[in-house]
């Protein structure tokens, strides 16, 4: 699979090295389990109304796999990702980490768990502490990776490199406050964090929703390269089934809090069984035509 030649804006030099789907046929079910869940449920109670945001979902994410969770707005994707991150308690059901029941009952255990898992949150505007300069976000990442004692210049070089992966010039952003950045810049900076952190698991909740199509292709390239390099498990949340097909190993289709279909990307997209999946696919007009990234998303 190749990026469409028509996308001729801002040529990206490493285009030929794109590795999407190079391992498309790799069977991840043989890899060790990374995250899995059994009957994971989350009910929200506000006043008299109860919302079942996530309803008895079962899943198995393997090490190194790129999983997409696809569903329309309000289907419970963000809620599920918050539970996977350990930021929200499931109402019932159990989540397993590396095959063992996940234990994050104390603050120390939580912090230990969070060492290996990172996230790109859906809303970049609320992801920043508005009182801190954006440099802090990246410096935190360097510190977390044990770079606290590096010299100023070394840190600057690392931050500049991370920003270059997401088409940002760090020199232009340094010393700015979040409100001085555009939504897309904020989102790209959140992705830049991942290049500094190189986490074991990445939960990306619509990480490129505000980025222009051209940059998006490059950034996703970079992210997938990183994943190939480090064997990172990526859980990619999107409402865009086309994009999901394009990058994932397996796909979970979510409707009203339930997984209505799941499996290898090709099986799900080329042979959809659930009516909801069929509808999602038919909503993407060019699904069987060559990929044109400029229309994706």
């Amino acid at each position, binding site marked *: 699979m190749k990026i469409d030649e028509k996308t001729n804006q801002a040529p990206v030099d490493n285009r030929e090295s794109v590795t999407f789907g190079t391992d498309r046929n790799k069977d991840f079910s043989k890899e060790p389990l990374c995250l899995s869940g059994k009957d994971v449920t989350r009910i929200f109670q506000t006043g008299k109304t109860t919302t079942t945001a996530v309803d008895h979902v079962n899943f198995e994410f393997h090490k190194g796999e790129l999983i997409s969770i696809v569903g329309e707005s309000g289907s419970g994707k963000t809620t599920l990702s918050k539970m996977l*991150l350990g930021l929200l308690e499931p109402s019932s059901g159990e989540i397993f980490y590396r095959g063992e029941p996940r234990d994050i009952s104390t603050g120390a255990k*939580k912090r230990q768990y969070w060492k290996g898992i990172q996230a790109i949150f859906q809303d970049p505007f609320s992801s920043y*502490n508005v009182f801190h300069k954006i440099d802090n976000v990246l410096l935190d990442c360097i510190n977390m990776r044990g770079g606290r004692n590096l010299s100023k210049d070394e840190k600057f070089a690392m931050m500049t490199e991370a920003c270059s992966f997401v088409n940002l010039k760090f020199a232009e952003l340094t010393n700015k406050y979040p409100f001085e950045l555009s939504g897309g810049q904020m989102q790209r900076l959140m992705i830049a964090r991942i290049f500094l952190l190189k986490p074991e698991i990445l939960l990306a909740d619509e990480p490129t929703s505000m980025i222009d199509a051209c940059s998006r292709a490059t950034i996703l390239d970079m992210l997938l390269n990183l994943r190939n390099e480090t064997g990172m498990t990526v859980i990619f949340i999107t409402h865009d089934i086309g994009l999901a097909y394009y990058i994932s190993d397996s796909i979970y289709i979510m409707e009203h809090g339930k997984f209505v279909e799941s499996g290898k990307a090709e099986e799900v997209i080329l042979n959809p069984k659930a009516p909801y999946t069929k509808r999602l696919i038919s909503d993407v007009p060019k699904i069987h035509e060559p990929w044109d990234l400029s229309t994706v998303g």
Partner: protein
Amino acid sequence: MKSTLRNIFHSPRFMVGFIIFMVMVLTVLIYPYFITRDPLVSLGKGFLEPGTYFSIYDANNASTYRMELPEATMNRLETSLPLADRQLILDFLKAKGADLSDLDTSNDKVGELIEAWTANYDEADVKASKYEGFTTQAKRRALARLNTKLSSSASSDVMTITRGDGEEATTSSISDTDYARVDQVANAITLPLGTDNFGRDTLTELVKATGVSLIIGLIAGSIATLLGLLVGLLAGYIGGIVDDILMFIANIFTVIPGFVLLILIYYSVGQESRGVVTCAVVIGLTSWVWTARSVRSQVISLRNRDHVNLSKLSGHSLFRIVTTDILPYIASYVVMAFILQVSSGILAEAQLSLLGLGPKTTDVPTLGLMMNWAKLFGAYTSSNAWWAYFPVILVIALTSFSLNLMNTGLDQVFNPTLRD
């Protein structure tokens, strides 16, 4: 940050409140450098009206200047014509059948009274008139004497003063054209707000009391805000059992009205050990609940924000998250709550003192104590000494008004949706 500060100082409401408040604070700070006497020292006896007082004794010793003011006689008559004489004039005019409709015996009518007298008095006429009974002769003489007295403006009067007694007595005389300059009189004092029931200078006392009440407000407000902030942050951020326990305690404080609690604690402490600081601490300890509640609800809405989540994922400690990711977001709110707490602390002290449960009365005055004294010694009623309580009420009202104005000003800046 800088632009927020600029907005605050461009908010007219905040500025008006701030200026009133600063004027009060500066007065409290600067006044003692000019008037150095102890605010609780007794200068006289009972309520003295506002005015300049000087020693008559010392005035005799001051250099004299000769002055002949044209209104001197009239002024003298206005303050010194005896009531009996005024009545005599009225009766005389009545007998003459003159129009009495707007004449009476009050001070400011003396001028008109004398004018009517001069217009109607006629010596021959009086001599010819017959007055009832054997008093006719006496009456004629009385009227003639009064006429002399009233028309003697040109002639001068001399007063003789004797000092010492026996052989060593010396005499000096003062003419009615002798004047002394007030600032050359050895003992003179201006009391812009008179004195209170203990004869203490009300203005000096009021300035001191304002300072003490502001300190009470600041201490009470700081304690209430810090305690409320701490409880609210812990309950809101940690949640769970910590939240339940803290909110249970807060509920107890809500169910038992703070004021009743205040009175009970206060009463049990006993007046002698109730200093200003004790008073402030007790007020602070009973008024933190609403700050705690509102901080808690703000924290609950913040703790699930993604920047807090990101901070958690970055491995930050609870302390760091609370201080860097939560506290700055509610700081403006806390400042506003603090201002209101200061204001209500001052009011609480006034209420308590009015009930006789204020700080002990021998140390320093407070606004509440001044109100209490005014009430106890009948300034509102029998003495009608408005200067002993009205300025105090005004200061309490102004403090509260300025603080609340600052608060609404801040509110408009921090919550721009309220901007009109």
